[in-house]
């Protein structure tokens, strides 16, 4: 379909463009201007940005369909303007063999919504013992390999996994968490956990593991992406590692960017997250790191959990928060707090995320895939269970009024969502 988007404020972080204009789309790609479009969208008052790229969104299939399904979560994605997403391998069974990955990709493709990029399991069943067939999994469509939230305790296996991945030039995505120090912990080891009597995960559970990973990157030159940084110390270490020229990138999740351990309040199970929400000081360091580029991109770490999983005492509640539909509003909120130009703010969920993921979308250049989000940056909405498309209603932001409403989402030139 030939489509024209008129009078939009076009914001393309990759080129730095920010100005009113028209956008033309043909054959699924951003095109040169043409006459007689089949459809014209008047986007006056809306921002036209590259569709958002969420590098961590759990779709819960296979295995956890009672928490969410591909259908429900893909609806949530496009309602949030997310046109590409990477899904971690912690499904049941985990994404550790080509057949599973193939099935997931087919199912996702049939829905014709957002593009789904599976992250393969780094070890069989995520058990941290045997490597998966990474090369084959990559052929099936895995863009990277990860342990999701399961720490890899055996450093020899980690070392070998990085060597093996480096052999094939495959990226490895790791969350830095020592397998023992924080064992049994459910909250940041600090004043709040002490007050609430919750077992703690010290900040050094992250920095110790990160130091190990960085040493192994030095040794193997594997390309490693560090997921969900949560501490000020880790941001500082990443800053030094990048200065040194190590092939590393990192991200932070929307919740850790805005919340801290004090937000646990009276045991709010929606704040039960992995890694745990840390101190205000950590949160501020993450925010600064994301601004100065030490932290490459921002993701939702979308984890739908059903009420049965959350209506439990804090420590027994399942970790995670729903996030696909909050990615844009919380990114905008961050940019506003730090007084950043819109193009720079959006870069963290478009062009920068594309670079981490290794995809060609995330920009509005002529010839790029026509994945576009049209949103009203001023329109606010209240986060309520009934307004969320995701099957997971679990978010610490319930009841919040957040600005940034998506009006249209286009994937490969097709309007897949309008509101």
């Amino acid at each position, binding site marked *: 379909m030939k489509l024209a988007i008129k009078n939009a404020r076009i914001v393309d972080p990759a080129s730095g463009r920010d100005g009113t204009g028209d956008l033309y789309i043909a054959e699924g790609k951003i095109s040169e201007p043409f006459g007689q479009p089949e459809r014209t969208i008047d986007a006056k008052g809306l921002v036209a940005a590259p569709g958002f790229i969420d590098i961590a969104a759990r779709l819960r299939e296979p295995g956890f369909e009672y928490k969410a399904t591909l259908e429900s979560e893909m609806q949530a994605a496009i309602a949030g303007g997310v046109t590409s997403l990477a899904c971690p391998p912690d499904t049941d069974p985990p994404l550790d063999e080509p057949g599973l990955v193939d099935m997931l990709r087919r199912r996702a493709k049939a829905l014709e919504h957002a593009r789904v990029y599976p992250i393969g399991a780094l070890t069989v069943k995520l058990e941290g013992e045997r490597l998966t067939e990474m090369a084959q999994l990559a052929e099936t469509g895995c863009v990277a390999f990860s342990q999701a939230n399961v720490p890899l305790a055996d450093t020899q296996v980690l070392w070998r996994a990085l060597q093996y991945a480096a052999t094939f030039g495959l990226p490895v995505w790791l969350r830095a968490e020592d397998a023992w120090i924080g064992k049994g912990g459910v909250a940041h*080891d*600090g*004043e709040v*956990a*002490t*007050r*609430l*009597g*919750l*077992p*703690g995960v*010290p900040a050094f559970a992250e920095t110790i593991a990160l130091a190990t990973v960085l040493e192994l990157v030095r040794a193997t030159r594997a390309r490693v992406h560090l997921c969900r940084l949560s501490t000020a110390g880790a941001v500082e270490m990443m800053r030094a590692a990048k200065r040194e020229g190590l092939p590393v990138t990192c991200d932070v999740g929307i919740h850790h960017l805005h*919340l801290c351990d004090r*937000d646990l*309040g*009276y*045991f709010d*199970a929606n704040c039960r997250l992995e890694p745990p929400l840390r101190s205000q000081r950590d949160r501020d360091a993450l925010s600064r790191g994301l601004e100065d580029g030490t932290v490459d991109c921002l993701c939702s770490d979308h984890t739908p959990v059903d009420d*049965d999983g959350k*209506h*439990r*005492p*804090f*420590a*027994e509640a399942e970790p995670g928060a729903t996030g696909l539909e909050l990615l844009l509003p919380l990114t905008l909120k961050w940019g506003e707090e730090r007084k950043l130009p819109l193009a720079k703010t959006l870069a963290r969920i478009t062009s920068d995320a594309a670079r981490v993921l290794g995809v060609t979308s995330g920009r509005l250049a002529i010839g790029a895939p026509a994945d576009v989000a049209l949103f009203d940056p001023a329109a606010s909405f209240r986060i309520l269970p009934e307004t969320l498309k995701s099957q997971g209603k679990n978010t*610490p*932001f319930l*009841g*919040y009024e957040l600005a940034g409403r998506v009006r249209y989402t286009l994937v490969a030139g097709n309007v897949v969502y309008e509101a």
Partner: protein
Amino acid sequence: MQLQRNPQLNANGELQHLLSIEGLPREVLTQILDTAESFVGVTEREVKKVPLLRGKSVFNLFFEPSTRTRTTFEIAAKRLSADVINLNIAVSSQTKGESLLDTVANLSAMQADIFVVRHDSSGAPFLIARHVKPHEHVVNAGDGRHAHPTQGLLDLYTIRHYKKDFSRLTVAIVGDVLHSRVARSLIHGLTTLSAPEVRVIGPQTLLPAGVEALGVKVFRDMREGLRDCDVVVMLRLQNERMTGALLPSAQEYFKHYGLTLEKLALARQDAIVMHPGPMNRGVEIDSSVADGPHSVILPQVTFGIAVRMAVMSIVAGN
């Protein structure tokens, strides 16, 4: 994210549930202690009953085994003329996979007035309090490491009984503060009632991160920590913590952190010694101290019943 209203207090600032001492205004604490004082008389009478909770049902919901606390709650409820139903959930529904909230909803359908809840997970009574009906009340009988407010209150009662006021007291809490809900509740109570110096004494492995933020002074050396104390509160050391990564042995622990007459001599002459029970003689406390003239461990138990009567009668009246 929002600053939530204290879930224990109703719209008028009165005690709706007792979940934690933290955040309770001084007036509420004093009200409970004063009410308890009036009930001490009742427990000494020949007919040990008052009709305050006649016709009310108190459900003792114990998700974690306990004999002592459950019994004292039962006695307290009976002395208030309530009907008491004991449920030892640790061995019933939970093992059948019923969720905590389902259990509570079922009991609520049986017309409960007060739920006395013990649970091994911190915060469980808060979850229950959020889901009970407006006329139902939740009393926390110990949740994980978080709080044991009635124990904290009976400790406060005991201290007030022997020391009259809190404004000049130095109180030392000794031992496994990390895992202790008793310590947390007492610390909040003492700071709310303006005790000028609260000390915690223990090896670093048994002190939680940032404990100073609760308003206490930390001592690693017990002798130093006991110096000139008016009140010494010994904490129970659980068996499973005596050997392993936290402590090498019970013997070594006793040598450094066990309360003996010789160490107690460093405290003030009229110091009182408390213990929430059950005691490990020879581990955290020497028998000569436990049974000695400074010990007020048994009066604590007696006061505990009056304090629990006070708590239940107050929440039921609000």
